[in-house]
């Protein structure tokens, strides 16, 4: 079984095309536990409800420009809450200005992916994100476990 198969993922993007594209790529990496959100509000709601239910997301992909609340605002909202420190928030966006990339990294983005991205490159990024999750959880386990 793929080491990525146990990941629980949320894709937040207002474009159906991208939600489907990422879902397909994740499926190729054997990641089946995938939900989607079409705007920032829905993303916040789903992420909070999942944690409350004891089934937190491991990875949340965020588009930058979405209706209601932007991906950057969603990222900042959760990074202000320590209980989400071991959730990977990944910006997946056509926004490629260096200043904005820095803004997202400073806000706590685990990774920043500029669209367009090939399925192969997205798969590689997912592997890196999984390594980040493992390190993060080992450290938390070492301190609190």
């Amino acid at each position, binding site marked *: 079984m793929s080491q990525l198969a146990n990941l629980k993922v949320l894709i937040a993007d207002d474009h159906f095309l991208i939600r489907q594209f990422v879902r*397909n790529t994740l499926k190729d990496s054997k990641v089946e536990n995938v939900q989607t959100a079409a705007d920032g509000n829905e993303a916040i709601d789903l992420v909070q409800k999942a944690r409350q239910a004891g089934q937190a997301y491991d990875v949340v992909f965020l588009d930058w420009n979405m209706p209601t609340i932007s991906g950057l605002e969603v990222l900042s909202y959760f990074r202000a809450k320590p209980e989400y420190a071991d959730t990977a928030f990944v910006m997946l966006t056509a926004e490629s200005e260096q200043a904005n990339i820095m803004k997202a990294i400073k806000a706590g983005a685990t990774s920043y992916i500029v669209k367009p991205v*090939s399925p192969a490159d997205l798969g590689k990024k997912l592997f890196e994100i999984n390594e980040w999750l493992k390190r993060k959880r080992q450290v938390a386990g070492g301190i609190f476990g």
Partner: protein
Amino acid sequence: MSNTQVQLSLSDDLAKDVAIAVTRSMRETFGVDVTAGTAEYGDGMVSLVGDISGIIGMVQQQLEGTLMLCMTFETVRDILPQVVGKSIVITHEMAVDAVGELTNMIFGQIKSDLNQRGHQIKLGIPCVVSGKGHFVSQFHRGKYLIVPFHLDGQLFQVYIAVHPGQAAKDLALQG
């Protein structure tokens, strides 16, 4: 970082940027290979015809412009199944969504490439116009560049028009 802004001109270098951004977006997102044709340059107003068009305004300190991607519904219907699945019926909403996102990706990439070369370009809010056989006409007194693309016998176009902005006009008046 330098504050010196490099004036954008409609050149073969820009046509090359367009070709790279479009072929890359189509290959990476849809897994299809498109071929760029010979770029066409001209002055003044031109009308493009299509079924779905993605349009974004662009400004530079001394320049104003429009970026446009103009496609037929058939082209979108041919590329979308690579992502959404072959058994899915492609709806009008899906096609509009796809062209909107393609517009974002293509022109975001072109902006990034140009800004790395010092152009300091800003883009407006993208919009998508749809309607079978609609015309998009640009009312300007500047220059335009059209790069055609071919995909399995189908054609779509990327159009860039620029004219001097207010700052350039003010400078000209002062001079």
